[in-house]
């Protein structure tokens, strides 16, 4: 059942990547909704440590490849930043999950918000480091904050949807919620 859940999450990754391209654009400055960090957060919290790391690697590969840009045949950024980013967040979320004794919807929502804003902020800083200059403005903050807010709001919906597939027991109960399982 749990292996099936990991496979389900891996299958959902490409679907989510495509679906987020078709979601409506948010005002005021045409910000895009990011679903991938929301799904990643769920996987990172719900899966045991090692499968969660594999899931993070798969997320990093998909996100890294989708956003890869080439300049004169050379990749602007490789996959390393995405891999490091998602692996670090997986470790952090797993540790937080232990503190809160399992997966909770509040933790998932907050995690989704933080992963989204750090991902977008990191992408912006990486572009600035590569191309030079750091044009910080209110537009940059809006472009990071609005998708972050959207993730925060969407996370509980995805949580409820995915919870029906995953063998998670009552929230907050460490006795009934042995989320990590052996590989």
């Amino acid at each position: 059942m749990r292996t099936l859940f990991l496979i389900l999450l891996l299958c959902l990754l490409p679907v989510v990547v495509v679906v987020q391209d078709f979601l409506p654009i948010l005002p005021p400055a045409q910000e895009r909704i990011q679903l991938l960090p929301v799904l990643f957060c769920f996987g990172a919290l719900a899966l045991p440590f090692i499968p969660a790391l594999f899931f993070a690697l798969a997320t990093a590969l998909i996100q890294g490849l989708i956003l890869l840009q080439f300049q004169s045949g050379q990749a602007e950024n490789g996959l390393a930043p995405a891999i490091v980013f998602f692996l670090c967040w997986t470790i952090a979320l797993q540790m937080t999950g232990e503190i809160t004794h399992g997966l909770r919807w509040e933790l998932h929502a907050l995690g989704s918000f933080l992963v989204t804003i750090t991902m977008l902020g990191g992408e912006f800083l990486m572009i600035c480091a590569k191309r030079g200059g750091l044009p910080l403005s209110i537009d940059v903050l809006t472009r990071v904050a609005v998708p972050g807010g959207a993730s925060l709001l969407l996370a509980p919906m995805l949580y409820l949807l995915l919870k029906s597939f995953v063998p998670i027991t009552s929230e907050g109960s460490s006795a009934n919620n042995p989320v990590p399982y052996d590989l």
Partner: protein
Amino acid sequence: MKKLQTAALILLTLAGLFFCFLGSGALSRMQSSLIGFLAPISQSGHTVKSSIGSIGKDLLTLDQLETEYSRLDAENRRLRAENNGLRDLLEENNHLRQVLGYREHSSFLLVPATILSHDAGVWWNTVKVNRGTKDGISTDMPVITDRGLIGKTTTVSDNISEVLLITDENCKVAAKVEGTKEQGICAGPRIGNGDLQLTFLSKLADLQPGQKVYTAGVSGGVFPSGIALGTVKSFHPRELDGEATLEPTADLDNLEEVFIVTGGK
């Protein structure tokens, strides 16, 4: 079980390191394969989105339909009249060309394509179109609409290609300003707001709002000469050069049908 976990962790580390140190060529092939893999989902998504859009269109009231019919009827009559006038002009033009022995102006081989989706990346301006290597598309081909340039192909899979829009900072186009000798490099700002920036102009350039800007067609470059790019909104001199803000000629927010330039006729 402990051994299995250790083995999994080692495998994960090796896989992570392998992907971290991949070269640009391998990454490009992987990206192309991923886009190809996602193509059926993208095309299904586009079909669903179009169907949802058409449901909305069907729900017009009778008054709206009547107004729309009147508008289209008037437009049809206007276009017929215009077409008749243009036919006369075409005949006259052909006659003059023959008389003067001019060669027909260069034109392009175009492959029509439909925009499937706008990519969700916040800092990049890219769209996906439903044409790929099977349709003769390769990387670095200009993409245009009937109104002007919109970008170039970057990653191409069998059935889907990614197009980098001219509003992206990475899509640099050599451009010239109509009625002047001014030439510069046109690209989008890093924090895109839909406008273009034309830089490396002369500080003393006398550009006026409304002047048209076309591709300059640099030898060996991606974009042929003479494709409409935008109109000047404002100009301001900088320390070493002049910079103009342009409004793109093509409506990049409502793209549906585009053409990929695969070569010249």
